[in-house]
């Protein structure tokens, strides 16, 4: 019983980090209608930028200043992606946009490998390590702080998208580009804001996920793990993402504990993707998405 509850707690904590990455998918999709496959690479890029500012420069930059510098670099990075790749493709078909995302994926991976090299290095410690005891259960401090951060960020972004003027504009752009334009909403600006938000959230996720652990190019897999989470929560729903993250994280932890010994370690790896196919078959708009997926 203790194992079960401990497994569920661990799964929930990791799941909320998945949720955080999923939010970065959702933020971009809500405004730009782009499922950015390269989100995992964007996250790794953010992590490498953070490493550069905390340890890579050779100067002892205090952590808060380094984080601020990282965020500024991320904003520039997000704006750069939008300006050079996705702005010329506004109004193109879904296939074109998708392929641009795929091209971005290998471009970022190549650039990251060229600039920072393929070797693994230790990621900067942003959040305190250790564990808090609740009775017989242990909770990882880093993940707990990350989980609280995820919940707060979700609420803040939700308010931004439903209350703030700029956020409502983004929602209008997500609904339909032509309508938004005819109502005087600047589509380009909205999409730029979405990309900047997306990269910043992804970098925040990198900080939570990697703090004190290993940073390498392989971390980008998290993007593909968070994609099923974003789909399950609904691509338009900010608040759906952490909830779906909880579900996926807990199921994955359960599968890792109870099914992996029987299946040679495959169950927990396959689960998110099987879940993704199931979601697409049964409820393509996810738990809280807008129900307007075209189908026949």
């Amino acid at each position, binding site marked *: 019983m203790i194992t079960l509850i401990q497994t569920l707690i661990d799964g929930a904590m990791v799941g909320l980090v998945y949720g955080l990455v999923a939010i970065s998918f959702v933020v971009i999709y809500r405004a730009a209608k782009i499922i950015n496959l390269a989100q995992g690479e964007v996250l790794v890029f953010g992590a490498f930028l953070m490493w550069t500012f905390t340890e890579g420069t050779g100067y002892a930059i205090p952590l808060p200043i380094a984080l601020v510098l990282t965020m500024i670099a991320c904003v520039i990075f997000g704006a750069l992606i939008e300006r050079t790749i996705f702005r010329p493709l506004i109004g193109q078909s879904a296939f*074109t946009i998708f392929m641009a995302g795929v*091209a971005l994926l290998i*471009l970022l991976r190549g650039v990251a*490998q060229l600039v920072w090299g393929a070797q693994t290095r230790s990621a900067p410690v942003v959040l305190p390590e250790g564990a808090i005891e609740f009775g017989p259960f242990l909770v990882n401090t880093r993940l707990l702080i990350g989980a609280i951060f995820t919940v707060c960020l979700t609420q803040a972004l939700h308010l931004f998208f439903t209350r703030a003027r700029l956020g409502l504009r983004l929602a209008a752009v997500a609904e339909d580009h032509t309508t938004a334009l005819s109502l005087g909403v600047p589509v380009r600006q909205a999409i730029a804001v979405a990309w900047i938000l997306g990269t910043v959230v992804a970098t925040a996720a990198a900080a939570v996920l990697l703090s004190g652990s290993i940073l390498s190019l392989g971390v980008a897999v998290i993007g593909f793990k968070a994609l099923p989470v974003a789909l399950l929560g609904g691509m338009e729903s900010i608040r759906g993402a952490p909830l779906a993250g909880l579900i996926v994280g807990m199921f994955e932890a359960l599968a890792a504990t109870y099914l992996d010994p029987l299946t040679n370690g*495959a169950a927990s790896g396959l689960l998110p993707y099987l879940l*993704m196919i199931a979601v697409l078959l049964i409820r393509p708009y996810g738990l809280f998405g807008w129900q307007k*997926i*075209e189908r*026949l």
Partner: protein
Amino acid sequence: MRPTGISFDSFTAEARVLETRRARVWLLVLCAVLLVLPFVSGPWLLGQLSYAFITLIAVYGLFVTVGMAGQINIAQSAFVGVGAFTAAKLSGLGVPFWIVIPAAALITGAISVLFALPAARVKGFYLALTTLAAQVMFPIVILALPMSWLGGLVGMPVVAPKLFGHSLGGPKEFYWLALLFAAVATWCAFNLPRSRLGRALRAVHDNDTAASVMGIPVTRIKIEAFFAGALFAGVAGALTAYFLQFVTVSSFTLFASVWYLGMLIVGGIHSPLGPILGVAFITIVQEGLHKISNLLLQSDSGIGGGAVFSLSSILLALCILFALIFEPRGLAHLWHTTKTTFRLWPFPRN
């Protein structure tokens, strides 16, 4: 538009792919050159060409699924992998290659149908995600299966194909084998757009609501598009297995899928000429990069193998982005316009 002076006196003459005698003669010359090439060239070129032929078959598969039917498939390399592992397993059991290759194609097709089923519910982006799931799940499944089934982490050796007691494993013999299959695949790819199925695929690509109004079973056609594309992938996979004579999971990555898609996009997704031009262009660029980087590696300029790999992926990404933004119809379109310009010179095109 045809040049003036070309007219037809029968429907069959007009329906031909190669309309003029001159085109047919050029094709015969090309075939003859490709057939006698092994007698004059070294094994390195033959190996490169054999591999290019295999890649071409896989890219033709993508042309059917992505170019003609408009269904995004980012798992072509996983499907090639399924074909390769099927071929490795069957050849290990002593099955002759002329049964192995069709069997690999059919099994790959059957598996692709499994991942095309969500087409009944979703389309576009969302359908692409199921193929992404297929690509990501492929290595996990192979690695988790017992070693004795598909080799697991180590991989599987492949017995060289045999015909009437002669081994086809040598570079010359394998070149002819790959050429034969590439020729068949080319014939299929050029004729499919003219068939009933091909027109149905095109209709689904252009507008699936209109297609269903015309009486086309859209979901079935989409699944058939995936099936047809995976047949090509299965053949390519079986040939890859025979070519490398060893299969491991690490040869069939998401990256390889992206390379296939990149070749299709750079070549042009709407014309069967596209895959040929795309494969040729990307292969030449990649080989050029390898040559340059080999020179750099020998001259001790501090560039490692990782940098070469990252440079080639950056180059491919830039090729794809450039094609998407500036020439979405690819090299095939460029080829057509150049040809027209030359034909009409000194008059302007259009």
